């Protein structure tokens, strides 16, 4: 029933949702547009050392020479980069004393999503531990982590407090000239997170940051850097939500991960940015470069993503397996509905010996959406005994949507073993009828079937995140069948 979907969409995205996030916050913004002066001004306002200003300027100059990538199976409307505000920071943080101060309708939406109370507090702005429009307001668990020597702070703070670490690793995995959107991010990134796990330390908690695009017409350029030293472990969660806007909003983030010997990094994302309305109006453009470098031997980097949001998604979390015996993993659920377009997948680059990679991708297309998996497996000459297994499944709901799979293989070493499996299926009317006959209505039946389909990936998420992800999938699909 589409009315039900409208209702939920409205609840999730309607005006009140902004309340307390948006209208009440006074913003410190730069005028629209991008130039060397703007880049310098961003760096200045953030009080950055000179090397950062230079880093940004070089990226900006590279960006000027580059073009938007056109190879993806996406229809990207032209973006006017001079019509975007590149710096917006809240002057004072919006702080509520308790959940009682939160708009009850907003709370009802959170309850519907099943977001745990602690996270509700974060989202609603009670003792905010979230990145809100570019400036990190506060960071969670800081003190407990500090005892173990773990650094978890905003990237701006890291640039000021730990310039040597930042200088050493920033741009080492995703160079400023890597691609068009990476160059743009490197020039203008506003804030993000920095994580440093010292040798032999296992992070006792899952590190989590919520990103929120809030102010009107502000492009969001997050930058995250995670460095895991020898024998360390960390699990990092990134969750995203954005209120409704009529105009499309650009988001171009970079996440870089470095894993040293025997280090393990798990990076999980649940992304439910505003996908636009039923007619394809509005929504976030999400152009993200995420890459992990398994630098040390026996290191492991694992990406898990559940993507239900954004009007356009262009995202390929990748692993470069440089160390011998290192492992890269990619687990993905990408759901598109209405007019959403997603071109997502991964790149697994095998450089070291005995490296292994695993790809499990589950695409779900509904409405008039287009959903593409694009994956590269590359085995270099000296990567003896590289192993890859890729499984790409597509599930179609209805007959107006599309699912596409674009696997690329570049194998330069004949000891490599690379396997690729792909399936495409439709939710059968017989499956739905079977559920109906057991008293389960069609919407719940679709939710049940879809959650069964994605279980392999959802199981990789931390518990609370998994529950939220399941609910999101159900909400995102409401009204798409029957």
């Amino acid at each position, binding site marked *: 029933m589409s009315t039900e979907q409208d209702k939920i969409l409205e609840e999730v995205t309607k005006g009140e949702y902004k309340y307390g996030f948006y209208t009440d916050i006074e913003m410190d913004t730069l005028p629209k547009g991008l130039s060397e002066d703007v880049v310098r001004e961003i760096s200045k306002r953030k009080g950055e050392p000179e090397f950062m200003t230079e880093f940004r300027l070089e990226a900006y100059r590279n960006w000027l020479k580059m073009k938007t990538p056109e190879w993806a199976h996406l229809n990207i409307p032209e973006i006017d980069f001079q019509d975007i505000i590149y710096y917006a920071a809240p002057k004072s943080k919006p702080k509520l004393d308790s959940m009682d101060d939160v708009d009850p309708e907003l709370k009802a939406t959170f309850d519907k999503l099943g977001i745990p109370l602690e996270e509700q507090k974060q989202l609603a702005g009670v003792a905010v531990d979230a990145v809100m429009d570019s400036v990190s307001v506060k960071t969670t668990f800081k003190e407990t982590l500090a005892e173990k020597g773990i650094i978890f702070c905003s990237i701006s703070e890291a640039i000021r407090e730990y310039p040597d670490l930042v200088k050493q690793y920033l741009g080492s995995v995703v160079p400023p000239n890597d691609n068009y959107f990476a160059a743009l991010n490197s020039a203008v990134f506003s804030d993000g997170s920095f994580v440093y796990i010292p040798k032999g330390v296992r992070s006792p908690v899952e590190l989590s940051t919520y990103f929120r695009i809030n102010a009107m017409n502000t492009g969001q350029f997050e930058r995250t850097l995670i460095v895991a030293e020898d024998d360390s472990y960390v699990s990092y969660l990134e969750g995203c939500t954005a209120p409704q806007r009529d105009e499309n909003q650009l988001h171009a983030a970079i996440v870089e991960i470095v894993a040293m010997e025997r280090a393990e990094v798990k990076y999980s994302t649940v992304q439910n940015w505003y996908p636009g309305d039923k007619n394809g109006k509005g929504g976030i453009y999400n152009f993200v470069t995420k890459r992990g470098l398994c630098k040390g031997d026996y290191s492991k980097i694992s990406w898990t993503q559940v993507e239900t949001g954004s009007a356009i998604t262009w995202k390929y979390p990748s692993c470069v397996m440089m160390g011998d015996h290192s492992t890269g993993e990619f687990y993905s659920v990408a759901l598109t509905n209405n007019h959403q377009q997603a071109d997502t997948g991964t790149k697994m680059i095998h450089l070291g010996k005995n490296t292994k990679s695993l790809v499990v991708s589950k695409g779900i297309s509904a409405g008039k959406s287009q959903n593409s998996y694009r994956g590269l497996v590359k085995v270099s000459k000296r990567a003896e005994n590289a192993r890859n297994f890729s499984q790409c499944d597509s599930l179609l709901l209805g007959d107006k949507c599309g699912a596409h799979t674009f696997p690329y293989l570049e194998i330069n070493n004949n000891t490599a073993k690379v396997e690729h499996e792909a399936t495409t299926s439709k939710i059968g009317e017989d499956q739905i*009828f079977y559920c109906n006959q057991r*008293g*389960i209505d069609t919407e719940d039946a679709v939710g049940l079937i879809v959650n069964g389909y994605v279980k392999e990936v959802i199981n990789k998420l931390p518990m609370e995140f998994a529950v939220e992800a399941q609910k999101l999938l159900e909400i995102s699909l409401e009204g798409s069948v029957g």
Partner: protein
Amino acid sequence: MLSIKNLHAKIENKEILRGIDLKVKPGEVHAIMGPNGSGKSTLASVLAGNEMFEVNEGSVEFNGKDILEMAPEDRAREGLFLSFQYPVEIPGVSMVNFLRTSLNELRKYKGEDPLSASEFLKLMREKKNLVEIDSDLTNRSVNEGFSGGEKKKNEIFQMAMLEPKLSILDETDSGLDIDALRVVANGVNKLKRPDNATVLITHYQRLLEYIVPDFVHVLYHGRIVKTGGKELAHELEANGYDWIKKEFGDK
């Protein structure tokens, strides 16, 4: 409990049911027999609300309510259960999750609170013992990788869990070996109560050696052409359907 009057139904303009009349009272077991293509499975599908079929005439009352106007899930919530001839597989959805969702929907409809996980698992253990189902089956995804016999046993297990008022078993005996048949039949017999009823749809008399019907109906060309007691089934077994075809052939 169930009252079918002059029911006509078609699929793609082909009329399959051509005026069915049937009354089922609580505590009764009815067998509907007939040659292939006579409309037996169509009747089951139409009663359960499968939208592939269009009802163009007649009425069906269940618990005094017109169910033809109800969505399939509401018919199920009213207590109508269909044991499918070909149960579908739902990969990745555990039996526990599926049945718990199902049972709690039925409870919600009746205004009852949902069962907690532990209450549910306890109930599941009881019913598993009752219908002699391997616990392995309930630890798997819905029908995924089940053999034909396992799928049918699983239908009976679901019936035991959901305690329907009216169970329609669509060719539940077809393709079963003798052991599976016995399990299915025992399950049905154990679940029989004065306040529920069963409609067995079958081609063969074999199942009726284990489940004794109160009435046997012969369906032919979309109509019930003959009704009798259990001896009618023996007659059909002995003489086949040819005499029915002769007697009630196209007029």
